[in-house]
């Protein structure tokens, strides 16, 4: 009996230890951002050959120097502004295009709608890597090189397919009876959409807004291809590419920027991840 309970305790310990190991692996770079962002330079820039200086902890009191430099001495806030501006426009475009399309695919188009839906979703799998070269040609024909409008035009190419797919799943989850009842009550299809379906879909639309915005904040490849002046960059481009002095990175400020940008996005994203996953796997699992 005693042996058996000992085994159980050991099993539980192994379970929690492995959970801890996974968590440490996942979180470690964020911890490293945090340490670097608040360490004093003399604590930060100690070569790793010095084995007596432990890099895992604050050896000197933490400092806000790097954060101050980031906000006052670098274009970080300009990049945040650019990102917000581009993000807002892309979200607007995405909602205008994707919400009606999602409804159409969910309710109105029948069997070919199903196929069309899968087709639209598959375009989400066409990666920027295949498209940035032809886009660079399209963008220069349109005269949009080094303009935020290039990104406003291009980003909906991945937000629209994905959000259409998400909205389609969302509209399907609204009971059809509700709409049929309203139509029996004398509403036309269009007024059913506006008066019955739309209010019910607000939370779905909110999900789409959040996802479109985070996708914009995460995008790097198109921004790298189209935007070359530092003042026009987005956060995810400016921080890794332009936060340098000559050849030297400001590691403290750089990691502060990574931390300050990543953590809020990650938290918001986490709140909506279940919808994201059910959207992605809906095709394969009929979830």
């Amino acid at each position, binding site marked *: 009996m005693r042996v058996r309970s000992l085994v159980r305790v050991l099993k539980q310990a192994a379970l*929690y230890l492995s959970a801890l190991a996974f968590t440490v692996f996942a979180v470690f770079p964020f911890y490293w951002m945090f340490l670097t962002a608040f360490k004093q330079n003399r604590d930060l820039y100690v070569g790793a050959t010095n084995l007596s200086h432990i890099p895992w902890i604050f050896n000197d009191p933490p400092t806000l120097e790097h954060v101050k430099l980031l906000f006052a001495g670098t274009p970080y806030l300009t990049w945040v502004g650019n990102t917000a501006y581009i993000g807002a426009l892309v979200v607007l475009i995405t909602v205008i295009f994707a919400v009606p399309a999602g409804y159409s695919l969910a309710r109105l188009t029948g069997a070919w709608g199903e196929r069309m839906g899968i087709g639209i979703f598959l375009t989400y799998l066409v990666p920027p890597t295949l498209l940035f070269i032809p886009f660079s040609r399209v963008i220069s*024909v349109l005269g949009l090189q080094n303009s935020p409008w290039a990104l406003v035009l291009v980003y909906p190419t991945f937000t629209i397919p994905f959000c259409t797919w998400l909205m389609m799943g969302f509209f399907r989850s609204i009971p059809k009876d509700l709409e049929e009842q309203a139509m029996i009550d004398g509403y036309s299809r269009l007024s059913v959409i506006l008066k019955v379906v739309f209010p019910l879909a607000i939370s779905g639309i909110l999900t789409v807004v959040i996802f479109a915005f985070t996708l914009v904040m995460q995008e790097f490849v198109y921004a790298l291809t189209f935007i070359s002046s530092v003042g026009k960059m987005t956060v*995810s481009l400016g921080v890794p590419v332009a936060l340098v002095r000559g050849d030297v990175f400001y590691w403290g400020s750089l990691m502060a*920027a990574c931390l300050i940008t990543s953590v809020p996005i*990650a938290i918001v994203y986490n709140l909506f991840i279940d919808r994201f996953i059910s959207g992605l796997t809906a095709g394969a699992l009929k979830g």
Partner: protein
Amino acid sequence: MPVPEGAGETVVAAPALRRRTLADREDTLGRILLTPALLYVILLVGVPFVLAILLSFSRATSGSLAFSWAGLQNFAAVLSDPQFRRALQNTVLFTVVSQILVVVLATAAALVIDALMVGKRAVRFLILLPWAAPVSLAAMAWTWIFDSTFSVVNWTLKVAGLLKGWFYWFGDPTLAMIAIITVHVWRMFPFATVIVLAGRTAIPQDVSEQAVIDGAGFWRKLFQVELPLLLPIVAVAVLFGVVFTSTDLSIVWLLTRGGPYNSTHVLASLAFQRGILGADLGQGAAIALFLLPVLVIVAVAMLRLARRVEVGA
């Protein structure tokens, strides 16, 4: 839709009548609602996609808008280029190795998280951070972690007595590849874990309970009952993982810029270097197009899987 007059007499006929006219309008309405999104996708994904293929057969440069037919020249040039062959090899290597690790780690992590009594949500939240953070910023954190002078990895290995010499992570091709694969795995395993977790909730509990009743031990239950049932969902995770990993430009670009000595280029980063930085759009497009077969295979596999699960359900 106005309610028909004299509804008292035609109670039975009215719904049928209304349904038909509505159905007609639904069709039109459906098209009107769908068309804008469809046009956007056709114009800005479909057309550039075709343009990518055309460019790969042309001598186009980003300096001019001239378009002259080059036939298979770009492909011939690319195929005889050792740098390209290295990039192709690396793309396959990075994708296959990282996906194998991702599958093992994600399945294990999902089983562990599901078995937790406390802290399930917290662990899931923390494990998801790598996938949710912007990839370019995460790549910078790793660049700093693997810094040649200040690498905390080196310090820790030294202190643990596991490292005799010194790791110049981005100065040595093998080490640079290990670093790149590490970052890919770190970024993709959380995503796969969540997919597997979502899939596990769809597996009926009584199957695995029945296995216990039938006397199957932990390992037997794992390998003969649980894992086979998880297979379709793991396949979904792998398919997405293959697409995201094989086409990724940012991690290689930010970690190594393809170096040292162009030894860590992948198709995406080489296409960027030749097509955008080198202004040779034709060759860049030709290099990127080698990713197309992978994507076609993934798309077909995805549709097959969808159909199979649908039939099964």
